[in-house]
């Protein structure tokens, strides 16, 4: 695989968001050797995708001049008007300008709220939860197909302890990404938390618990090696089985056994330093 194919794959996966610093640095060096070589034996789509990635890599590794150069090349090609380009410009401004100047920049340059996201993420770090939630809801009213925004809203509701709203938000993520097994597990966790806090009587709690098990089951149906899902099944089934009036004792008993067996097998296969494996071992004790 050529270097350009590798870089293009990295850019498509957006792996630079999650890389640790040393690997980020290495990816940056690779990317800059490609971009500086001036080699254009790739299609325009690939070249500019790699250049966009190079911009983010430069920003993340604090090389403002490189970022400026990459941004300039992108602006030369696409103009400075489009929403994707204005987000790049916003990111550059955010990284290099003073906060006051940045606010000014957003006011001047933002069209249809392109840059609004960049601006209001600071509400989260500042702890202005109400404003932050309001802006998220506003964003979702503009574009309900943004699964990431729904997930963020769900997390905020979960932190606030508003589980039913959080579950609703995460369900909307599933409308956009129907096979997101981690979201199913997250909904299962939230239903479990809701069941443990709810004051509506034990029957409601039990219903929520079994719904939670169903969600965990769906997540392991989609991804059979998902430790979080199996752990959820195990924990919630154990709790359900403590209730003597449970309707389907047999089913939950079987589920609990299967989850236990699966967790043991996965823990044996996995690395003990992996936090998920460690958590599985903790649960099994």
């Amino acid at each position, binding site marked *: 695989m050529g270097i350009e194919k590798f870089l293009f794959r990295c850019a498509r996966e957006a792996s630079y968001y999650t890389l640790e610093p040393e690997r980020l640095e290495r990816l940056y060096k690779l990317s800059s050797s490609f971009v500086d070589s001036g080699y254009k034996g790739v299609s325009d789509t690939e070249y500019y995708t790699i250049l966009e990635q190079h911009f983010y890599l430069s920003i993340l590794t604090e090389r403002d001049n490189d970022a400026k150069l990459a941004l300039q090349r992108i602006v030369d090609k696409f103009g400075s008007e489009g*929403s994707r380009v204005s987000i790049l410009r916003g990111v550059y401004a955010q990284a290099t300008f003073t906060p006051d100047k940045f606010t000014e920049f957003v006011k001047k340059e933002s069209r*249809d709220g392109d840059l609004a996201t960049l601006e209001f993420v600071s509400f989260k770090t500042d702890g202005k939860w109400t404003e932050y939630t309001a802006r998220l809801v506003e964003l979702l009213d*503009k*574009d309900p197909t943004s699964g990431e925004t729904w997930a963020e809203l769900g997390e905020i509701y979960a932190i606030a302890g508003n589980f039913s709203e959080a579950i609703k938000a995460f*369900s909307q993520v599933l*409308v956009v990404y*129907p096979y997101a097994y981690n979201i199913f597990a997250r909904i299962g966790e939230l239903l479990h938390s809701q069941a443990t806090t709810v004051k509506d009587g034990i029957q409601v709690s039990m219903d929520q618990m079994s719904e939670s098990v*169903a969600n965990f*089951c769906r997540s392991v149906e989609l991804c059979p090696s998902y430790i979080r899902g199996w752990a959820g*099944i195990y924990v919630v089934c154990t709790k359900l089985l403590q209730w003597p009036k449970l309707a389907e004792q047999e089913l939950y008993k079987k589920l609990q056994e299967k989850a236990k067996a699966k967790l043991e097998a996965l823990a044996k296969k996995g690395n003990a330093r992996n936090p998920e494996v460690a958590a599985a071992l903790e649960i099994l004790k």
Partner: protein
Amino acid sequence: MASSRARDLQTLLADNQMAVPDLFLDPDLRTWVLAPILVVMILVGLTRHYITVSSRPSPPLLKGKDKRQQAYLRYSSLLLKHSFNLSEYQFNSTVQALVPKFRGGEYLANPDSKPASGMPDLSDPSSLEGVTKMARTQIVNIVPQAILMSWVSSFFGGLVVLKLPFPLTWRFKEMLQSGIQTADLDVRWVSSISWYILLLMGLSSVYALLLGGNNSASQQQQQQQQLFGAPGVDFKKLFSAEADSMELATHKSVLRGVQSRVLEP
């Protein structure tokens, strides 16, 4: 002696029987007719490519309201496609919240716009722009063709420029010898105007080699684009159709029976 003379006679006869070319082409024809037409045609194609590339308008930017309109259409289709992930209550409440808004046209970018008719409306500046663009591309296509054609026929009319290395049937005579009225000339001879027409048809692979596959040096693809310009879409109708299909949708949760599915070996 006698036998060698007979052999000479035989070879002479054989030479006579072989097809002797009935015409000899002046080598100057190659340098001053064949090559110039070829070079000029290629250069015209390249120029046309670069003119269309540089005069191509950038795609229009979607305004916030247009984006919102698109997003809601996409959302309703996603909702219908993946409704199995929602619980029945969630699905119904989402649909009940959306349907009146879809019918009321809350998400329309231009709620007051009239439904578009088939023909472009000349009083509307945006469609007028499309018409002028069409006319411009037509001109870019037709003008150089007309000029080249008259150039070839006035300067090189009536010339025979090359001989094809393979035989052809008489049917090809009209195609290969336009501009020459010689009834019994062999079909393999090609006239200058026919050479021009052959190049007009056959240069696209040369352009593909020089400019890459997706070029606008030859005119065919452009005409297709003109024919299928953006038709008027009636978003009001689209939204009410989506509302209808949301109301009619049946719901079945994927979580039903998932426990036993997981337990299956």
